[in-house]
């Protein structure tokens, strides 16, 4: 398939080695074909990742062998469920080097995690005139909850602008910090530009100005080593379904003192210590924030996904995706005439490449690629203000994960030439 291997220039990626081949065999969906018999070329991992057999099996085993509620059952399968659920918490804590599993709150997704912080921490700590600093490249999940909060509390939002290359303008950030914001919240990796932001440096700046820092790690955790202690941040959120885990799983990490001081978000069973008709008090963290029956099977799956990623090694994951991105930027630029590529150079980005073909709407691009089994996203990728910033109505996006291979990027390039051909007829 790769008609490029002979012409490759300075970065000459090795063909997918035996490791990667056998890794692909872990993902049953990669053996499927589409309605035209074409194999799946899944380049939409930033939207949601594929699931390996180990994760599917972990969730399945719960349903088949020990389906029961957790924490309160004094019988064998309930104890097994509790152990598996709390074990998953420990695995997820390890994945991001959280100091203790109790600091991991399980949630449905990154969106819920941010809303939890906005409702619980935010409503208590943001008052009239207080400001929150975000950036122009935030996903709606890390923007709209803060809009609602400042509307309610009469606070302000400020935005770190970006360069045309898609990098945050730190000199403006510096100035915004003079406003003494209470919170700085930004994405670790942009889901449209791919930009990897300098979290540690910006966190130091924010802390020096007295702000807490929340990082949206939805596009970072599955793709690179993340160590919340080394980053020094205060809140870190991510989604399970983007890190090989089932939909319905996700996590908020925050420092113990913060979680302990925060009032509950949702209320109900399991998050309480004592309930009377007119007052109640709360359970310890993390359970204080996990009201009702959690998504036991999905979170067990998330634990399995964390173990799967750690077994590959997050450095290896990062290297692989870096190789894919470098290769994609090179091939697309060279082989797809007129393509517009957004975002910074390969060494400053995660596994995301957004682009447009001149004069062709990304919906049409995606639709034509679909015939060949190639899945890319088209639209605003939940970053409308960022698209406005670049004066784009929409863009197409290819995004990678541990199972992505060069041949898929080759297929994308071939597919894009076909799109151009159809529209040029």
């Amino acid at each position, binding site marked *: 398939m790769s008609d490029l291997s002979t012409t490759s220039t300075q970065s000459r990626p090795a063909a997918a080695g035996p490791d990667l081949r056998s890794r692909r065999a872990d993902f049953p969906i990669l053996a499927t074909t589409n309605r035209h018999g074409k194999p799946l070329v899944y380049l939409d991992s930033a939207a949601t990742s594929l699931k390996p057999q180990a994760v599917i099996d972990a969730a399945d085993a719960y349903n088949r062998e020990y389906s029961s509620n957790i924490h309160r059952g004094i019988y064998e399968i309930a104890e097994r469920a509790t152990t598996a659920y709390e074990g998953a918490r420990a695995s997820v804590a390890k994945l991001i080097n959280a100091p203790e599993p109790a600091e991991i709150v399980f949630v449905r997704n990154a969106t819920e995690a941010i809303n939890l912080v906005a409702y619980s921490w935010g409503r208590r700590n943001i008052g009239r005139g207080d400001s929150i600093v975000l950036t122009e490249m935030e996903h709606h999940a890390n923007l709209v909850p803060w809009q609602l909060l400042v509307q309610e509390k009469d606070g302000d939002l400020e935005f770190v602008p970006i360069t045309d290359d898609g990098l945050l303008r730190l000199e403006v950030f510096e100035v915004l910090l003079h406003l003494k914001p209470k919170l700085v919240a930004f994405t670790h990796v942009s889901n449209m530009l791919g930009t990897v932001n300098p979290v540690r440096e910006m966190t130091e700046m924010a802390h020096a100005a007295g702000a807490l820092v929340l990082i949206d790690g939805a596009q970072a955790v599955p793709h690179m080593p993340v160590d919340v202690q080394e980053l020094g941040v205060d809140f870190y959120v991510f989604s399970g379904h983007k890190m090989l885990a089932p939909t319905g799983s996700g996590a908020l990490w925050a420092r113990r003192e913060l979680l302990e001081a925060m009032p509950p978000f949702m209320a109900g069973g399991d998050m309480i210590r004592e309930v009377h008709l007119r007052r109640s008090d709360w359970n310890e963290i993390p359970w204080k924030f996990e009201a009702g029956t959690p998504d036991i099977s999905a979170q067990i799956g998330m634990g399995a996904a964390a173990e799967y990623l750690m077994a590959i090694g997050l450095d290896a994951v990062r290297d692989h995706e870096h190789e894919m991105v470098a290769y994609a930027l090179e091939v697309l630029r060279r082989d797809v005439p007129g393509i517009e590529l957004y975002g910074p150079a390969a060494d400053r980005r995660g596994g995301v490449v957004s682009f447009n073909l001149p004069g*062709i*709407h*990304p*919906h*049409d691009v995606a*639709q*034509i690629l679909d*015939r060949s089994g190639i899945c890319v996203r*088209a*639209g*605003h990728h939940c970053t*409308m203000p960022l*698209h406005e910033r670049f004066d*784009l*109505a*929409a863009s197409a996006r290819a995004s990678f994960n541990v199972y992505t291979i060069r041949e898929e990027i080759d297929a994308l390039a071939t597919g894009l030439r076909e799109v151009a051909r*159809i*529209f040029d*007829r």
Partner: protein
Amino acid sequence: MDDLYRDYILEHYRRPHNFGVLEAPTTSYEGSNPLCGDRITMMLGISDGVVREVAFTGRGCAISQASASLLTDEIKGKTVAEVEEMTPDDLLDLIGIDISPARLKCALLSLDTVAHALADDAAKQAEAQGQTQA
């Protein structure tokens, strides 16, 4: 090769019919599909209950633009009542290709925008009539 990008669809996309502006439309409306960034402004010139003139501008995918091109051809010369009766299925028949659920909004934006323009016009006339009677 599947149905969606037949030559005549692409032809309508490349050289849309009735693309442009009316000098003095009786009614106009800007419809949009924020999720994909499609935008269409429909301008109608109505007299004696008949759509005499129609034009549109906008940007969007091939489906939404071709749909607007085909629809404007279709409604020109029709009575307002006839246009109001057009259903999504009528428009899809006109387009003549299978539209997947994910693209329905693209295909139907033009009709939706025309419907809004007509509703605005009807409201204006009702108001005018109200004032005359008062």
